[in-house]
């Protein structure tokens, strides 16, 4: 009846703009949902590919130690073992060193050098893993074989108990070399993350502590570390998530043997290295399904670690009132 009920003609610029706005809203929502769809797609496609292996081998797939394409018997345990051992060892090396570097950059380093060194470390964190891999293969592995491992065998290898960890001939490649390369790779990441977290400690608190006569170490130990503990654990888990799934740096130097060596100097394998090495050669059927099942295990493992890491980092962000 009234003029209000008449829809504006399509050429009306305002109606056109509002329609464009609705379309833009829909398009951006759709784009955001791509993230969700990719994760659902990864889960479903890997689960579907892994299903034959899980169906035929049952839960024993996770605990069996055999990996024999000739007899079609597959177990994930050796690969899971190698993945966990190398990642944990790498974190044991990289975390204390990363904390040290962060402490150095926030408290000790001469001020004019802080920014350049910080930037250099951030740039190093972006170097692709294949670079670390090729360096590990051509430089680190020979060094380990000719110098480091004979030394370890001659010294630590003779100690009862832990000696078994350093037994056997020096191959150069193996679990320890892989762990070292992984540690070098995550070190810049850990260091720059830790530095950023340290810098979020309120300066007033630290200055007050210094004012009371605390030493730099005491301020770090009693103020900075407790204040940033949640974020640090979150950050370290983020780094662990990366180490667990790292492929190229490890594949070059792990030795790719489906064994569970008692000694860290012997070749082993990880989930990602096994997939990278064998997937293209694997015959369709049980073999490739077992490899996809390995991938599914890795996906679940890293998803859990990364989710826990995100939850912790979010708690810190909320506390800081972001």
């Amino acid at each position, binding site marked *: 009846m009234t003029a209000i009920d008449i829809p504006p003609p399509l050429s009306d610029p305002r109606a056109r703009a509002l329609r464009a706005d609705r379309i833009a809203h829909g398009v951006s929502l759709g784009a955001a949902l791509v*993230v*969700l769809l990719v994760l659902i797609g990864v889960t479903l496609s890997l689960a579907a590919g892994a299903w034959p292996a899980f169906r035929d081998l049952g839960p024993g797939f996770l605990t069996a130690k055999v990996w024999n394409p000739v007899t079609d018997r597959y177990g994930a345990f050796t690969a899971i073992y190698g993945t966990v051992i190398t990642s944990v060892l790498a974190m044991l090396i990289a975390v204390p060193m990363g904390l040290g570097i962060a402490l150095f950059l926030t408290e000790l380093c001469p001020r004019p050098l802080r920014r350049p060194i910080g930037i250099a470390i951030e740039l*190093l964190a972006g170097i692709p893993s294949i670079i670390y891999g090729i*360096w590990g293969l051509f430089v680190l592995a020979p060094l380990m074989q000719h110098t480091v491992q004979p030394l370890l065998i001659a010294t630590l290898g003779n100690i009862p108990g832990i000696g078994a960890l350093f037994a056997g001939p020096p191959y150069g490649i193996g679990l320890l070399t892989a762990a070292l390369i992984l540690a070098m790779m995550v070190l810049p990441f850990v260091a720059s993350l830790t530095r950023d977290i340290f810098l979020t400690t309120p300066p007033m608190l630290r200055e007050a502590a210094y004012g009371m006569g605390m030493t730099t170490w005491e301020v770090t130990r009693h103020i900075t570390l407790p204040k940033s503990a949640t974020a640090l654990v979150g950050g370290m888990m983020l780094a662990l998530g990366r180490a667990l*799934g790292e*492929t190229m740096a490890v594949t070059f130097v792990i030795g790719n043997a489906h064994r569970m060596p008692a000694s860290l100097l012997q070749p082993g394998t990880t989930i990602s290295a096994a997939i990278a090495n064998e997937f293209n050669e694997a015959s369709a059927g049980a073999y490739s399904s077992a490899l996809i099942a390995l991938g599914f295990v890795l996906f679940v493992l890293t998803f859990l670690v990364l989710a826990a890491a995100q939850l912790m980092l979010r708690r810190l962000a909320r506390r800081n009132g972001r």
Partner: protein
Amino acid sequence: MLSPSPRLRRRKALNAVMMLLATASAALGLIVLALILGDLCWQGLSALNAHVLSQDTPGPMSEGGLRNAIVGSFLLSGLAVLIGTPIGLFAGTYLSEYGRYSKLAQVLRFLNDILLSVPSIIVGLFVYQVLVRPVGHFSGLAGAVALAILVVPTVVRTTENMLRLVPDQLREAALAMGAPRWHMIRRVIWKAALSGIVTGVLLAIARISGETAPLLFTALSNSFFSLDMTRPMASLPITIYQFALSPYENWQALAWAGAFLITLTVLAISVLARAVTAKGDRA
């Protein structure tokens, strides 16, 4: 003068030891990382010559270069950025503008941060299952899609962060003048955050230009020069992987040359990304 108490002396000694350890770990870490870069430059530069850019990958023990791999890497990364950037840009815009406070945006933010760190070999397996197995053969297209899946979360993350830095007063001013939201986003918000968005895309390029694992089961490789995205395609990282593990010296030298080129590219793009941000901050 009072002599310091034993307790104070102990505290100072502990402090000195800890600071020494921190400095030593910083020195050791930086030296090792410098060694890696040094070896890379040394080996890479001595293997670098004009043939590397002008000839295709050779057979064992014969002359050749990396031309097909370099061109393949450009094509794969370029297509991946073309696919991934619009998705990432719009998704980041949704998280920052249309859906900022919604429950859905919270969940998507969380999932995006996870996707950011999902092992890239898993992405390769996924694309193999979806785009290679049904088609029956490897293809450059599948490789580009796998790389695009790595581009998206990086661009989403930086775009959202950068858009959120734009002050709300700008949004309110634009809306108060009667601008529809889409107009406000395009003409005000994106414009204000342009340098940050470009930085995000550059960081994504830096990330994918060295990625190897996602290409193993998707683009595979190709010993010949090819521009056909529906066929297997050579790339620099895969060529490095194959050549480094070969017993042939000329292949190993080419692997070093390729590794040097990739590192140089990644570092140059990262530095460029920083320069763009710095310039945006000044403007």
